[in-house]
């Protein structure tokens, strides 16, 4: 079979990213030819700024050298500009006459810098800032003793150019038409701070000045403004904006507006022609940052590979200024208006300014100067539309102050030494991350996670890793609002769940077929999630798929690092009896359990049990009345209690009995993530109820109910849900809360992040204010529990799933 021919016009960041994604999906589908007007391989354009500033070399920023093209059998026509596309003959022709036929054509021609129609614009020494050639021309002028540089345009690129030239020893003035810098990303106070920071490095600014002419004979000599003022200039950098490069597309008769118009699959109006990158207009928007372009590349590659299901639905943009030592970050819509409210933090002495614009308790935009550590966090809250009302007080102080046990704002990543440990879980230091990013050409957090394991476990170092990424390759963090459940699908958790209910999908196969899963049997990420969603949606009807359970939930014990298991029986409310203790002791001796440990959850852990012994251990424990504690499951774990009014001189209520009743009601329930509860007998709170998913604190007049606490990686104190009078009410609210969480949280989302996402007000509305709704939730919980409360240990001790626990002996 002859392979289909793919021709790519544009050897830049979006085009080559698409090719890389395509090669990963379908390495043999196409014969690939690439035209690039620039005489180079593919390089990281973002990093031209640090090259200009002397912080990196051209070699550092090469993404794919010529050897890479050869290795992947890609024909590269570097230095050849495509002039015409003959759509009828499906052929492109370059300026030098080289022509290539295509079955599919990909346009990735980027943008061109706008050149103001000024007298003198063609003089030698007038440059734009777009490619390697421009940088070389600027460096040549700086190196040949040019003293005065004038940068026209005070936007992101203009400022980065100005900073670079100043670091190369030139005397730089930035001229800007408006009264504040970077007006598309910054408000006036932020722009003012930035301007002062740059001035302190020797840059000069002429704001509200309009250029009238560039003066000189052959080379530029000076710049004149409309008010008559003249500035001497050996170099003029024009940086007043870019426009999508659509000449070629237009000449071929493709439909263009500001950019080449594409649909959600990145296809132009000619179905054989796709387009990605800055040259594209999608749903009325054009983009000038790499993150959205990479997202387009992914979707486009998916269609070129004929996998055919991904859609691009637009991106939100976050901008970061790359001037070493001056931190500026901006995202979303940062202008105040009548519906919006702003939270502002200002510390002029430290040069710090932070502004968050909120609407309906959700972040709509952010501007950060001086301290940008939390930029990615705010951006995530913005993208996910998280309700921040509960975080408001600490929001401006940053993620470190809402209890992240990770690294505080104090760490300036760029300044950290290579040996500094970034990821405590996996022991990954900064140097290893930087090396992986550079050597493997990584751009996204996911890629860094996969290659280095940094931030892949508890996640508390995510912000740091993102910063290292940004300072090493520029900021390309994901900006798409929608996050697919896993690589097997383009649908989100919420969409999948909705489809399950709306379309009565009752088996894993039905879900995958209905939603056009890309893999026949899913992967280790989506299978457990789907299994849970089905268990939750169709209690009693859906048959649990043990092959889609993580080993702990399949074997009903926790796997240990040596392949043995641990066993934790339920100790209701932390109360036990001599008979139970004796049974545990006997089991421990009989099966030579190496370690018996009191857990942090008021129970006893038998560690180091051989898998084949598990059914016997359970049988013996079962005889004494002990059942599974689900210490291994995304399920109800412990209900910790204190001694309460039965014994304690301060106790106001019988917290022990309350806890036992709660545990008897909720045990056995499968949940999106583990659920922990506690009941304290008075506000001294010895059971630590205020860091539990559902915590109860007894007071003289009744019970306070607290929700959304978490004592793990990121400590979060509960929110007060409400106060009730009787034990029956506690149980009803508890059941309703459990069921709301079960039905609506995403798989592997604990109550703390769930409540932060949907807002406490929402949970209150559903569980406290809506009485009928609460009773209905509690009833659904009870119905589901009738199916769920089967002791898995007893089943297996009686012989169920025997094969799981026995090996085959071969002679």
């Amino acid at each position, binding site marked *: 079979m002859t392979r289909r021919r793919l021709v790519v016009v544009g050897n830049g960041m979006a085009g080559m990213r698409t090719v890389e994604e395509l090669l990963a999906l379908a390495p043999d589908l196409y014969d690939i030819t690439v035209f690039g007007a620039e005489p180079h391989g593919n390089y990281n354009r973002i990093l031209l700024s640090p090259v200009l500033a002397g912080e990196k070399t051209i070699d550092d920023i090469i993404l794919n050298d010529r050897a890479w093209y050869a290795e992947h059998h890609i024909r590269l026509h570097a230095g050849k500009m495509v002039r015409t596309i003959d759509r009828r003959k499906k052929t492109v022709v370059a300026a030098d006459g080289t022509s290539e036929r295509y079955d599919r054509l990909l346009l990735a021609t980027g943008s061109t810098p706008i050149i103001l129609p000024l007298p003198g614009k063609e003089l030698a020494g007038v440059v734009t800032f777009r490619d390697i050639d421009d940088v070389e021309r600027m460096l040549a002028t700086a190196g040949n003793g040019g003293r005065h540089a004038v940068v026209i345009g005070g936007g992101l690129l203009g400022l980065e150019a100005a900073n670079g030239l100043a670091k190369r020893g030139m005397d730089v003035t930035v001229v800007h038409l408006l009264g504040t810098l970077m007006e598309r990303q910054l408000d006036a106070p932020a722009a003012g701070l930035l301007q002062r920071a740059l001035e302190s490095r020797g840059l000069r600014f002429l704001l509200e000045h309009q250029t009238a002419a560039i003066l000189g004979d052959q080379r530029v000599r000076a710049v004149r403004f409309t008010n008559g003022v003249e500035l001497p200039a050996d170099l003029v950098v024009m940086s007043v904006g870019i426009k999508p490069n659509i000449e070629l597309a237009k000449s071929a008769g493709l439909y263009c507006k500001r950019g080449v118009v594409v649909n959600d699959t990145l296809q132009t109006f000619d179905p054989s022609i796709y387009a990605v990158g800055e040259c594209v207009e999608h749903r009325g928007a054009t983009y000038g940052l790499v993150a959205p372009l990479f997202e387009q590349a992914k979707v486009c590659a998916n269609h070129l590979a004929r996998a055919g299901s991904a859609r691009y639905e637009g991106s939100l943009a976050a901008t970061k200024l790359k001037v070493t030592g001056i931190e500026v970050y901006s995202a979303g819509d940062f202008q105040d208006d009548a519906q919006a409210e702003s939270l502002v933090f200002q510390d002029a002495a430290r040069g710090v300014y932070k502004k968050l614009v909120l609407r309906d308790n959700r972040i709509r935009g952010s501007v950060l100067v001086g301290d940008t550590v939390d930029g990615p966090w705010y951006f995530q809250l913005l993208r996910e539309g998280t309700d921040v009302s509960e975080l408001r007080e600490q929001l401006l102080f940053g993620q470190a102050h809402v209890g992240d046990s990770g690294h505080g704002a104090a760490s300036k990543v760029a300044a950290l030494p290579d040996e500094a440990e970034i990821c405590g879980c996996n022991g990954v230091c900064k140097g290893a991350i930087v090396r992986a990013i550079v050597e*493997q050409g990584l751009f996204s957090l996911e890629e860094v996670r*996969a*290659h280095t394991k940094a931030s892949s476990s508890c996640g508390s170092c995510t912000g740091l890793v993102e910063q290292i990424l940004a300072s090493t390759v520029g900021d390309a963090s994901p900006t798409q609002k929608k996050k697919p459940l896993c690589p097997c699908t383009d649908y989100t958790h919420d969409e999948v769940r909705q489809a399950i209910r709306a379309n009565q999908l009752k088996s894993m196969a039905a879900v995958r077929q209905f939603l056009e899963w890309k*893999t*026949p*049997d*899913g*992967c*280790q990420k989506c*299978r*457990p999630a789907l299994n849970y969603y089905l268990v939750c949606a169709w209690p009693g009807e859906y048959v649990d798929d*043990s*092959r*889609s359970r*993580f*080993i*702990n939930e399949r*074997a009903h014990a926790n*796997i240990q*690092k040596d*392949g043995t298991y641990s066993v934790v029986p339920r100790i209701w409310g932390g109360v036990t009896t001599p008979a139970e203790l004796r049974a545990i002791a006997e089991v421990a001796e009989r099966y030579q359990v190496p370690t018996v440990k009191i857990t942090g959850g008021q129970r006893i852990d038998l560690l180091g049990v051989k898998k084949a012994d598990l059914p016997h251990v359970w049988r013996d424990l079962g005889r004494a009345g002990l059942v599974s504690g689900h210490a291994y499951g995304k399920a109800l774990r412990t209900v910790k209690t204190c001694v309460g009014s039965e014994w304690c001189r301060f106790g106001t209520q019988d917290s022990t009995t309350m806890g036992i009743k709660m545990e008897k009601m909720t045990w056995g329930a499968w949940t999106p993530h583990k659920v922990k509860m506690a009941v304290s007998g008075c506000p001294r709170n010895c059971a630590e109820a205020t860091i539990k998913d559902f915590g109860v604190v007894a007071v003289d007049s009744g019970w306070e109910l607290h929700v959304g606490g978490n004592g793990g990686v990121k400590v979060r104190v509960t929110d007060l849900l409400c106060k009730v009078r009787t034990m029956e009410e506690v149980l009803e609210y508890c059941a309703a809360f459990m069921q709301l969480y079960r039905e609506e949280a995403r798989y592997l989302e604990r109550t703390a992040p769930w409540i932060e996402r949907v807002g406490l007000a929402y949970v209150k509305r559903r569980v406290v204010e809506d009485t009928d709704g609460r009773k209905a939730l509690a009833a659904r919980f009870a119905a589901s529990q009738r199916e769920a409360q089967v002791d898995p240990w007893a089943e297996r001790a009686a012989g169920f799933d025997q*094969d799981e626990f026995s*090996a*085959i*002996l*071969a*002679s």
Partner: protein
Amino acid sequence: MSETAAVRETWIKVGELAGIPRLGARVVCTLFGNIAVFRTADDQVFALADRCPHKGGPLSQGMVFGTRVACPLHDWVVELKNGRAVAPDVGCTPSFPVRVEAGVVWLKLALEPNVAAAAVGV
């Protein structure tokens, strides 16, 4: 040494295919140590040493999808065909020939001599 050489040639009977769950595995205890015999959704059968190339996790306990298994300890993904860790992770676990005849699974304890030595730990 001659004994190991003899074992190297032998096909051993693992048991009925039906005894291995689809998308699952059974552990076979052999002279070469524990071997995990996997069965995919479409009844292909593969055998790997039951040791993850990362830190020795029991692959037999992992989740099987497509022709891969995810290790239960730290989620490395290993190719059932050849025991290779899926990129970007690097590493390889020994694999063994298997065949299914009339519903019965056979496993051949044959390896390159150096791999065999490593597998039995000599």
